[in-house]
């Protein structure tokens, strides 16, 4: 318990809870869009982004890592959208080609870097090492995501459910779709510190996926997802220090366990409830 009075630890807990909430909230949209696969693709894209940014600037700072990750994710994500516009190649196909190519660039560049240890923190997250600057970035990106999605909840839902009806009603469907994509990338980047780019998918899918097994209320996906993300992440940080494993993986493992538990025990849609029926 003396850990709790440690300022580093306090900061880690606060960061985990906030990042968990913002990402959990946004995971509602990921589940609604059924875009878990593209999230996974984009998270892998952040690796080469960070690696190339380090190569270009010669140093690893939170800012160039952030910028590199953002840039790479935007290039690959928007590139896949642009390619699929031609209606010849599906967006999923275009994304798979582009992200594996980008990831390969990252893998090729990795041995050239001198800052391996630090880079590992970005790949797998190291929430105990967050500084005030990192925390600030996470808070800012989280706030942008939360505020813009809450303000635009209705047009976003209309867009996701019936894009053509939404468009007819005057919803700027294309803007909303690009906005969601931009926010997705922001969310991914904000979770870098907590779980790293490889595991960030977990935070951005698992919370709302868990909620979707428990309820049919659309709004619950967001708020419930945020709650599960926040509590799960904070709890995982506490547990990880007592068990002695890294906090990043602990967060994603715990969220995975919650998901499986919901799958098994959900009173409405759980496997066991189905048996009883």
């Amino acid at each position: 318990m003396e850990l709790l009075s440690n300022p580093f630890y306090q900061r880690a807990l606060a960061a985990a809870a906030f990042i968990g909430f913002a990402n959990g909230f946004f995971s509602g949209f990921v589940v609604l869009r059924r875009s878990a696969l593209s999230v996974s693709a984009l998270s892998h894209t952040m690796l080469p982004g960070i690696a190339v940014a380090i190569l270009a600037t010669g140093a690893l700072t939170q800012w160039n890592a952030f910028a590199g990750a953002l840039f790479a994710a935007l290039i690959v994500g928007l590139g896949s959208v642009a390619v699929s516009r031609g209606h010849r190649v599906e967006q999923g196909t275009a994304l798979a080609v582009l992200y594996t190519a980008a990831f390969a660039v990252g893998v090729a560049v990795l041995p050239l870097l001198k800052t391996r240890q630090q880079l590992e923190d970005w790949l797998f997250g190291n929430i105990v090492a967050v500084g005030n600057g990192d925390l600030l970035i996470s808070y800012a990106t989280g706030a942008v995501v939360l505020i813009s999605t809450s303000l635009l909840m209705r047009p976003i839902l209309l867009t996701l459910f019936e894009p053509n009806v939404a468009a007819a009603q005057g919803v700027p469907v294309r803007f909303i779709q690009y906005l969601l994509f931009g926010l997705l990338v922001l969310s991914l980047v904000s979770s870098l510190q907590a779980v790293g780019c490889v595991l960030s998918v977990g935070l951005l899918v698992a919370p709302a996926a868990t909620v979707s097994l428990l309820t049919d209320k659309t709004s619950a996906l967001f708020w419930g997802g945020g709650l599960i993300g926040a509590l799960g992440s904070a709890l995982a940080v506490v547990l990880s220090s007592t068990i002695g494993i890294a906090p990043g993986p602990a967060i994603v493992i715990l969220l995975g366990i919650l998901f499986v538990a919901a799958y098994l025990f959900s009173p409405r849609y759980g496997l066991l409830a189905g048996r009883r029926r």
Partner: protein
Amino acid sequence: MSDHQHHDCCAHHEHHHELVIDSLTVHYRRVLALDRVSLATSCGNRVALVGPNGAGKSTLLKAIAGLVPRTSGTIRWRGTTVRKWSREFAYLPQREEVDWAFPITVRGLVEMGRYPQTGWWRTFSAADVQAVDLALESLGLLDLQQRQIRELSGGQQQRAFLARALAQEAHVLLLDEPFTGLDRQASRMLADLLGTLSHEGRLVIASHHDLDSTSRLFDEVLVLKTGQRGFGPVDEVLTPALIHEVFDAEKASL
């Protein structure tokens, strides 16, 4: 004309609201999908759109609803030109075009019908809540309002979208193949419902593929095959000669 007699029972309107479509033309990319279609009808009617596959039935519905851009032509409703979209028009998609797995309850779906009134931010007022309750009640969905939309039967799903249209206070209901995939009982229920809705003063326009039931379910019919082959009261328009010309010519040429 005797076939317009039922207009007298439009409960909500003193006079009839007219929908006038004048030479509506739609292209999909460069392909002509709808060629100069015109019709004039009014609330209280049920209008069937019939024609072979690919004749443009769905396109016409979507063009009226504002879901696809029109190349040329005008749509006038109650004396004013509808440029893109009117809140008084509600489009009900074909079953297979709906994302049934979307985590939304029946009530949530019907609440979406209020969005045009509430805008993006205004919270639901008592009047909004009442409109939703009323729509659910009049379509017999109160007991099902917390169900996810996939858990409904085909007929119930159709009614849930109708309830959304009612919550929107739509006057013109545009239904894409509403009877497809319904069992006999659900079909009959939907037929009664469309009858009631039109008697209450709404205009029902629906694409329909079953010629035999058209005269029983609808008052007027528009026969489509990219261009327009006939429009008017069902019994007058759907003659064996026209049916043969529009539907069988295709088979003969195969």
